């Protein structure tokens, strides 16, 4: 079981959280301009790294707020927790192909 430090509530059991998959996947600015392959890539293609992974979690049974995490998918060690809309701490994680000029 993971012990996850919610940025708002502090450390809580994993059972209070829900994993929302890869972080920093930006919705295309002009979806109508994409061809099928680019749209399919946005909908279906996600990074699946063995190692550091940037992912979103929501504290569903707590403050119900979303946040980002960098977690190692081999050791399960949580390397960083950082707010939605911000970039990961320097040197952590791998941003996906679809990322993200507009993560402010």
């Amino acid at each position: 079981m993971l012990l996850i430090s919610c940025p708002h509530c502090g450390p809580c059991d994993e059972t209070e959280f829900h994993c929302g998959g890869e972080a920093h996947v930006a919705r295309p600015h002009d979806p109508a301009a994409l061809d099928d392959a680019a749209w399919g890539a946005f909908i279906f293609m996600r990074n699946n790294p063995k190692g550091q992974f940037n992912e979103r979690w929501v504290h569903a049974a707590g403050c119900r707020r979303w946040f980002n995490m960098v977690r190692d998918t081999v050791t399960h060690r949580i390397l960083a927790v950082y707010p939605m809309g911000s970039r990961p701490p320097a040197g952590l994680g791998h941003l996906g192909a679809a990322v993200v000029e507009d993560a402010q």
Partner: protein
Amino acid sequence: MKQRFSAFTLLRNGLSWHENWQRQWRSPDPKPAYDVVIVGGGGHGLATAYYLAKEHGITNVAVLEKGWLGGGNTGRNTTIVRSNYLWDESAALYEHSLKLWEGLSADLNYNVMLSQRGVMNLAHNLGDVREAQRRVHANRLNGVDAEWLDTAGVKEFCPIINTSPDVRYPVLGATLQRRGGTARHDAVAWGYARGADARGVDIIQNCEVTGFDIEGGAIVGVQTTRGAIRTSKVGVVAAGHNSVLAAKAGIRLPLQSHPLQALVSEPIKPVHDCVVMSNTVHVYVSQSDKGELVMGAGIDGYNSYAQRGSFHIIEHQMAACLELFPIFSRLRMLRTWGGIVDVCPDASPLLTKTPVAGLFINGGWGTGGFKATPGSGHVFAHTIARDEPHPLAAPFSLDRFTTGALIDEHGAAAVAH
């Protein structure tokens, strides 16, 4: 010449204290070049090599396995075999597989201990009932045996199940596939390995693929921890590590790797002679020939390559199990483990060519790959040998995530993926 297994050889070797059995497959060093290289020595990869040799006459084949044969998901699943899928494409593929299962022990001269003891999928609410009955009709139209049982029928088929109307999720009925059941998971890997080896396939363990050599958009070889191997065709069948390998060839796959956990109880006398699966309370339970109850449920929600998951998943499936089978409440659980499954967005597999000529991928089986082992290998061997998809594999191409022709078995299959 490979020794054939029979009552006579069993008796003869018994007389010499079972000390003179042949090794079942060789452990050759890799040759510098092969016609086909299969990456991944689990059931699907070994089956692919076997059918390449048997059906297509391609015997200059290597199976590269980074660990030991069947040490991944082939050795970690709950051994359930069935074909009662909703959609036409899935039903055709899994039924093809089930038909191969039915002749597999004779075909391989290896007892895979297929036990067609019947698989029940329970319905606990009106939505379940409607979905299940729809699936029964769809199965029958596709030539897959399926029956609908009411609550009394469930109790008759599996007397130890709790059919009281007073529980939180009462059993309102079930679908039953009598041809479904269980098989011996290790024997499947070993049987295919022995059969492939006898036809000339080199099975090379402790040999990890570290990269692909690609020239002009076509595969020309693989790099491994035991040196470079030249080849013009590579089949990647690496389950949870498919994304990692595909990335080495510059290909993105719509896969996410998750832990899937299972557990067994201490062995007890025969008490449960069928397979019970419940989507709603979410557990599946059968009893192995050794007497252990074998249980599993859903994946952990996060991505992982760690072959272990979180304990609350186990707690949840035990709660579900005890709701269905109060008789098991004083059993002790012996061990739990996890395997890494690669899940597609539509919970259907990938059996596909790729943008790299000569590179083929067989993956995305998610939580339901074991039952598909023979069929998967059979159609994937065809796809590799002919360089075009087998008709049953064609709907499972990578293209479907561009065209939108998904095979959405999430929730449509008999148990959640």
